[in-house]
């Protein structure tokens, strides 16, 4: 069988795998953004102990390989009695790791806003909440978008690690097809192409979005 025929035969499995990869990406992204927000709030807030915990968390989780986090979430938590399905172990591990990166991106986005902006808003008589909502966050968001989208494309690629705990994502399907056909080269090439196509599509959409936001403000 030619490569193309093989690809045609396995494409449905690959696409099913892609759907799992996307669900994993989406759920991990939501968790990472929520966690990142909490980390920023804790680190910039007034409660010392929370700030220290958040800083410690970021230092540790940023330094550990995602694969270690994944095995911890899947195997070690199970030994402690918390048995997560593979998919959710993946969401937790990826979310826990990417939350530190998103937290840092949000923090530098906030820091990129000129202090004069806050002062001008305060001088107008705006409440602290209004200063954040109407002046600081809209500007911080623009600074957050480029590193934020970069983080997302890395997250998509890192979802392939869940193959190791048996989640039937795109990489899992490629691996299974490689074993069944004895054509690992062809099958991993197809997986690469699907990841790549998705990556191109997503980065185009995000780049256009970014451009739109920027254009609306000039």
């Amino acid at each position, binding site marked *: 069988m030619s490569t193309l025929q093989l690809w045609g035969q396995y494409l449905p499995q690959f696409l099913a795998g892609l759907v799992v990869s996307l669900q994993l990406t989406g759920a991990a992204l939501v968790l990472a953004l929520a966690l990142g927000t909490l980390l920023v709030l804790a680190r910039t807030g007034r409660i010392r102990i929370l700030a220290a915990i958040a800083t410690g968390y970021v230092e540790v989780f940023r330094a550990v390989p995602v694969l270690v986090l994944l095995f911890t979430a899947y195997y070690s938590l199970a030994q402690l009695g918390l048995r997560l399905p593979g998919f959710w172990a993946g969401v937790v591990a990826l979310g826990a790791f990417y939350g530190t990166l998103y937290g840092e991106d949000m923090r530098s986005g906030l820091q990129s806003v000129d202090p004069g902006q806050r002062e001008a808003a*305060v001088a107008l008589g705006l409440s602290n909440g209004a200063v954040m909502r109407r002046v600081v966050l809209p500007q911080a968001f623009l600074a957050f978008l480029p590193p934020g989208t970069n983080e997302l494309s890395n997250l998509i690629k890192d979802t392939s690690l869940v193959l190791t705990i048996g989640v039937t994502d795109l990489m899992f399907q490629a691996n299974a097809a490689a074993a069944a056909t004895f054509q690992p080269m062809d099958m991993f090439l197809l997986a690469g192409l699907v990841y790549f196509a998705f990556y191109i599509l997503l980065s185009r959409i995000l780049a256009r979005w970014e451009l739109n936001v920027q254009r609306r403000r*000039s």
Partner: protein
Amino acid sequence: MSSDVVVDIQGLTKRFGPRTVFEDISFQVHRSEVVAVIGPSGAGKSTFIRCINYLHPFEAGRIRVLDHELVGGGGPPSKATLRQIRMQVGMAFQTFNLFPHLTALGNVMLGPMETKRVPASEARDKAMALLTSVGLADRAEAYPRRLSGGEQQRVAICRALAMDPEVMLFDEPTSMLDPEMVGEVLGTIRGLAAQGMTLILVTHEMQFAKEVADTVVVMADGRVVETGPARDVLEHPTSERSRTFLTRVLKPLEAAGDGQASGPGATTALGGDHP
């Protein structure tokens, strides 16, 4: 000048850590009075006017703006007091600080909509009227980065005026501008003074101070070294410290000669025969 006090400052002292920026400053600003604060760089002029709307806390003294009072040293003022004072005190900054994500119109509409819950249509009408009054009606939909420095500063003044402040603070409003734009901004400020707005203005534009200010306050070495009617202080300073400062500011300008001065912005040299 009426005896109606708008801003009353008593014994104001400001420190940054161990460093005292100024100590025991007292003076009053009456309704419709124009006060020019001058003095060498680093004298604490910016810090001083920023205490008035509590952009900086201060260590001692008190500042009363109409019915609301800030007291130094103790805890922070109540949110309500701060809000009232900031709504009554408008400010224009040296670097304009327009909100880059909002149009000129959006910048001017924001204050009333956020603080007074003014409906958008009403805020828009008012903002449009203000922008028109400073000659920027056709720039209303432009974003700040598309505006010249002079236009940005005029929008920033409108943004503050939209709150109907009782007093306006200006911190060197023209020092970041190209010379040809200084005149348009000074013209706007002159218009406010003519309408009876109470103004406190940090400036290096001595000719403008002489023409528009009622009172000049000279700050140097962490205190007010001289204060009095504008013309007296600028032409016949009595304090040694203000004499050295004024000589230093004015000498280079006079030496530069009339040839360099041009247009409505030619308001720098003291004692010239400008309009």
